[in-house]
């Protein structure tokens, strides 16, 4: 066990993977950094996740690109069809727009269209999350958009062990996987087993165990929810906090079993208030486990607006621990007075 940040865990996972498998290449903007610039040190990606990879594995395997997301994500997809295992860094998930055809129609559908005649070991790592005033085009958490698209696997790690483990699982997956890393969590530390074991796609984690309600949250929201759970403990309220870790495939069994016990469901989602992760989970539980619900399920999401820049505005937009606490309390009260 070592304590390290999500950034470092991801970096180590890259090192392990690349050392073990020559067919893994890393592709993106400024990921070695300084391409064509005389002198100076390696940048290692704007968030430092790929630091040192260029020096260690060479520019043939750590490929700095022009600002051409459509073509390099398409290139990575084509490379995954023909023998390589590319890990692409898309600097911000907000930039999926410029590359969306290659994701929606090419990467997501290729294996189906080939009827499985090839694997598509493509991994797209990207970032998400508000909270640092990066404004409307550098803060979105667009996993809900990608989760709608058949053929893509989508994961959102919230701890160093999960980040490294999901990256390993993603590289080993026959289907394309998009990993959403929360910008605000890169420095978040946790214990990691020395061999950074893979975390299977589709397996959620029960973060805290309790009786009163089931709270589902991922990414930064998992940590906000954890803080809410801690504050509720003091009042004698115990919570099943579930971090599903992957959205597609989703560990509905874990969620359903918990709701059967608690009868109460709260889903926290930084992504979208309409037709995203929260709605998908609530709908699935309402459809398949209606009888288990003792009260109306609750979604804690931002309002339906682009993400504001100014500090107070952005703070008002984001769900926080206290918003989550209030939502859980309201849900439980509602039941008591029902």
């Amino acid at each position, binding site marked *: 066990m070592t304590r390290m940040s999500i950034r470092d865990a991801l970096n180590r996972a890259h090192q392990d993977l690349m050392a073990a498998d020559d067919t893994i290449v890393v592709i993106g903007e400024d990921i070695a950094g300084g391409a064509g610039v005389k002198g100076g040190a390696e940048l290692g990606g704007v968030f430092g996740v790929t630091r040192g990879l260029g020096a260690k594995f060479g520019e*043939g395997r750590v490929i700095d690109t*022009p600002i051409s997301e459509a073509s390099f994500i398409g290139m990575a997809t084509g*490379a995954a069809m023909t023998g*390589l295992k590319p890990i692409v860094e898309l600097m911000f998930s907000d930039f999926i727009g410029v590359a969306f055809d290659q994701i929606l129609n090419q990467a997501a559908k290729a294996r189906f*269209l080939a009827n499985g005649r090839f694997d598509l070991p493509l991994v797209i790592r990207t970032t998400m999350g508000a909270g640092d005033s990066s404004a409307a085009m550098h803060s979105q958490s667009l996993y809900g958009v990608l989760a709608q698209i058949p053929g893509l696997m989508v994961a959102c790690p919230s701890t160093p062990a999960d980040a490294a483990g999901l990256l390993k699982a993603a590289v080993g997956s026959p289907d394309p996987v998009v990993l959403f890393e929360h910008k605000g969590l890169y420095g978040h530390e946790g214990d990691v087993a020395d061999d950074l074991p893979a975390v299977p796609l589709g397996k959620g984690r029960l973060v805290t165990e309790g009786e009163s309600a089931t709270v589902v949250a991922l990414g930064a929201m998992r940590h906000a929810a954890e803080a809410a759970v801690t504050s509720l403990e003091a009042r004698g309220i115990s919570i099943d906090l579930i971090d599903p870790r992957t959205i597609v495939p989703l560990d509905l069994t874990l969620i359903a079993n918990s709701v059967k016990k608690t009868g109460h469901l709260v889903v926290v989602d930084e992504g979208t208030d309409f037709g995203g992760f929260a709605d998908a989970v609530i709908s699935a539980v309402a459809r398949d486990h209606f009888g288990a619900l003792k009260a109306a399920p609750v979604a804690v999401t931002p309002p339906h607006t682009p993400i504001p820049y100014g500090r107070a505005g952005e703070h008002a937009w984001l769900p926080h621990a206290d918003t989550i606490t209030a939502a859980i309390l309201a849900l439980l009260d509602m039941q008591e007075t029902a």
Partner: protein
Amino acid sequence: MTLDDLKPLFEKAHFIRAFEHEIAALSEAGDVPGLVHLCLGAELFEVALCANLEGPGDQVTGSHRSHGLALAMGADPVAVAAEILGRTGGLSEGLGGTQHLLAPEVGFLTSNGIVGGQVPLAAGAALSAKTLKTGGIGVAVMGDGATNQGAVFETMNLAVALKLPLLFVIENNGLGQSTSAHYASGGISPMARARGFGLAASHVEGGDITGCLKTVDRLVSWVRETGSPALVEASVPRLSGHYHGDEQLYRSAADSQPDPLEQFEDTLLRAGATATECHTIKTGAHAAAKAAVTAANQQADTSDEAVARWATRLGGAA
């Protein structure tokens, strides 16, 4: 190129022509589920292109109009026809269809429903060839209309910047659906624009078999040997509608163009072939094409099992 080298190409080109006619006939009979975009007019160029390639080391990606390319690369004609007909014996059990032909086994990586969408994918094949040192190249085939897509321009730059062994191939038939290439590209030719990106680029006439073979050979060799990208623009006629059944009211009857396969036949005759020989080759090719398409048409429809299998595999809602 000797006469003996040219004859198999003539045969293959006619096989493709006849194959497309058979598909057209089945389409009219109601046996083809989707709209088909036939390659009539491009067959000569496509066999000349693929004569210089060898899958699976070389990998070609094509547009919505790729029946001929898949066949020219050597995909099984019955499986291609069955895919176009949406049948169980199709390349992908009929899940993909006419615009989604995949035969990576023989070097036809994929065709595409999105204009230009196939082009970055070919850059990926080029990257694999380069990284894995297979000696192969990537080939991105597209129409003139596709050359106005952002992803295509980006890939031209990317291939230059990363030095990828990638051949861009433009089949310029002067039209994108009903819009003229001249209008859509402001009068600038694909070749001229490619040179602005620093690409080595040449033009060929799609009715000139020896010119096509020579130029493609030169560019393919150059890409293979230098590991750098290049582009070839082929002028080909679009001998039929955008899709089969397109009435083409937007096009005046007067703009009819010579048929490259007749030009090819003239070349053979000039090189010493007899009319009877040519006739025999054509008849044989036509019969073979008819047999393949007919065999495919006897197969059963895609099954719901194939769909269910993918639904289970891909997860999604409970």
